[in-house]
């Protein structure tokens, strides 16, 4: 059990490509922090730096009290779950689970106790003597988790562990990981590009972009108050509508409110748009396409004068049909203001 502290951490690759710009992050003991961002944002690199698989150009990483910059992965007392699981194909499940413990010289009876315990928790006891290739994707995933658990490390590092599973299994495993992490209370860093996974798993969410941290906070805080255009567009599905003020002013006319100075883009979540009339910026447009998702319907609306399609979410069935005209309102309370140049939120 330990906290993880990153201070001024930088990563520069050969040829002067900066993967991580000086970055600070503290992860509390027992916390599950999710690093999320598009591919190439540096989240995996950062995780691998914590693991000791990438060198650190600048700054310090400490796990618990120790600065681990110069330590081998094995000496950092962390365990990692890889995207492709990286199970040793020639070893049985039991041998896979034992390998790390054996290398540490753990006594035999302790190894057996821990392996059996982990197998029981993950319900893989029946497969202990099989080879990884005889297991299904979900079972392999559990073995990979088991390999981390038996070690009882200071921290778990997850590198997109669910992205090789199909959607249904992914949902199940997500819940299981959350439950497991809650009961073990092991500090965890979890990397994913899937914002839904990130939102549902994280105690705290770290949104990364271009080697920098965009915002850190509780998932709901990030959803409610995105600190930048990037976070606004990245968190939430379907994504927030981001509309330039200049174009809006031309079409919304009198209903356009006064916004704080510096605001030149407003954002609104698709489910906050109100179909019909009411308080707020009143717009109308043509429904291009309706996606009935089941519990809700997504409306893609083209508005004369805006060169982008707006997304509206209606609960239940759509009240209009495709090619119909639709009037709608952007309530003032639901608006997020951003400055285009800095990309930051304006309040």
């Amino acid at each position, binding site marked *: 059990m330990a906290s993880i502290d990153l201070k001024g951490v930088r990563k520069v690759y050969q040829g002067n490509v900066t993967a991580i710009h000086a970055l600070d992050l503290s992860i509390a003991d027992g916390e599950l922090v999710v690093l999320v961002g598009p591919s190439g944002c540096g989240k995996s690199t950062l995780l*691998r730096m914590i693991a000791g*698989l*990438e060198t650190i150009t600048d700054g310090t990483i400490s796990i618990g009290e120790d600065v681990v910059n110069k330590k*081998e992965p094995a000496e950092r007392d962390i365990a990692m779950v890889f995207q492709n699981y990286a199970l040793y194909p020639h070893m049985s499940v039991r041998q896979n689970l034992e390998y790390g413990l054996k290398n540490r010289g753990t006594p035999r009876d302790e190894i057996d106790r821990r392996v059996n315990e982990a197998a029981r928790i993950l319900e893989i006891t029946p497969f202990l003597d099989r080879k990884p290739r005889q297991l299904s994707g979900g079972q392999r995933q559990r073995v990979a988790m088991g390999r981390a658990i038996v070690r009882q490390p200071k921290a778990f590092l997850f590198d997109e562990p669910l992205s090789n599973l199909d959607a249904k299994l992914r949902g199940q495993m997500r819940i299981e990981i959350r439950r497991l992490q809650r009961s073990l209370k092991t500090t965890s860093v979890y990397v994913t590009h899937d914002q839904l996974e990130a939102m549902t798993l994280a105690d705290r969410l770290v949104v990364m972009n271009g080697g920098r941290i965009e915002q850190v906070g509780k998932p709901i805080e990030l959803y409610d108050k995105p600190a930048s255009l990037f976070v606004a567009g990245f968190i939430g599905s379907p994504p927030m509508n981001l509309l330039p003020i200049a174009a809006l002013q031309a079409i919304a006319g009198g209903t356009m409110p006064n916004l704080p100075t510096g605001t030149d883009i407003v954002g609104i979540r698709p489910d906050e748009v109100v179909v019909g009339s009411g308080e707020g910026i009143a717009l109308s447009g043509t429904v291009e396409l309706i996606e009935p998702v089941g519990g809700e319907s997504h409306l893609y609306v083209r508005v004369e004068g805006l060169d982008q399609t707006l997304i509206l979410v209606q609960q239940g069935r759509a009240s209009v049909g495709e090619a119909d005209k639709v009037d709608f309102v952007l309530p003032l309370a639901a608006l997020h203001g951003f400055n285009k140049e800095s990309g930051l939120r304006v309040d």
Partner: protein
Amino acid sequence: MDTKRTVFPSQGLPYLLVAPQLIITIIFFIWPAGQAVKSSFEREDPFGLSTSFVGLLHYLRLFQEPDYLASVGRTALFALAVTIISMGLALVLAVAVNRLIRAGTAYSTMLLWPYAVSPVVAGILWWFIFNSSTGILPYMLEFFGLDWNHQLNGTHAMILIIVAASWKQISYNFLFFLAGLQSVPQSLNEAAAIDGAGPFKRFWTIVFPLLSPTTFFLMIVNLNYTMFDTFGVIDATTAGGPNQATNTLVYKVYTDGYIGLNLGSSSAQSVILMLFVIVLTVIQFRYVERRVQY
């Protein structure tokens, strides 16, 4: 050139790991090759006491020596004949096996094992078959009024080594042609059949063009084989005779240098052969690189 994304941080270990291979390579490959190049520009006095630099003398002499020029032509003939015969037969057999579903494996086994017959043994086997006193082929050729004698007749001797060398190489070519054929998608064949192409037309218009990388690769390998690996075939049968009729370039390096102790000339011949292998290897690897991109 690639390594893994992460590598082990050790300093000395990798050097220890490559050391055995490199030491052997340097001592037994690179150093001797350098020596060959060096002595191809030098002349040693008859007592071996001193050497003097003679520039391109050995090379110039070589290209004026009728024996050497004849050997170049002979080697080319030999290499071409063996390549064409063994590749041709192998292709026919591979196409046939590829047509069969179950019986194919049994035929393959029967066709593959001669790979394990060494060139020397291949030479002896065919020497015995063509042997003028007890051999079975001269006996049969007599019916056609042909008096076979490869110990006196240079053409007969050349035919003998071509047959022996081709026979030995069929298995290898067969294996690679078969692998090439099996990687041609069956759907292409089916599409062509629906387009109305018969089996022979399909082979020449669809399968054979798709096989061209394999064919090209085998040509290079076969040239290499006939140049260098047939030493045993020749040494076990004609030993370069009669009257130089089967003295190929490699065999000549051996006889001039190891037997005749004519160091300068033999070295110059070695260097020329080295250049030849380098060219072949470069072509082969260029081609492999290209193939990887598919």
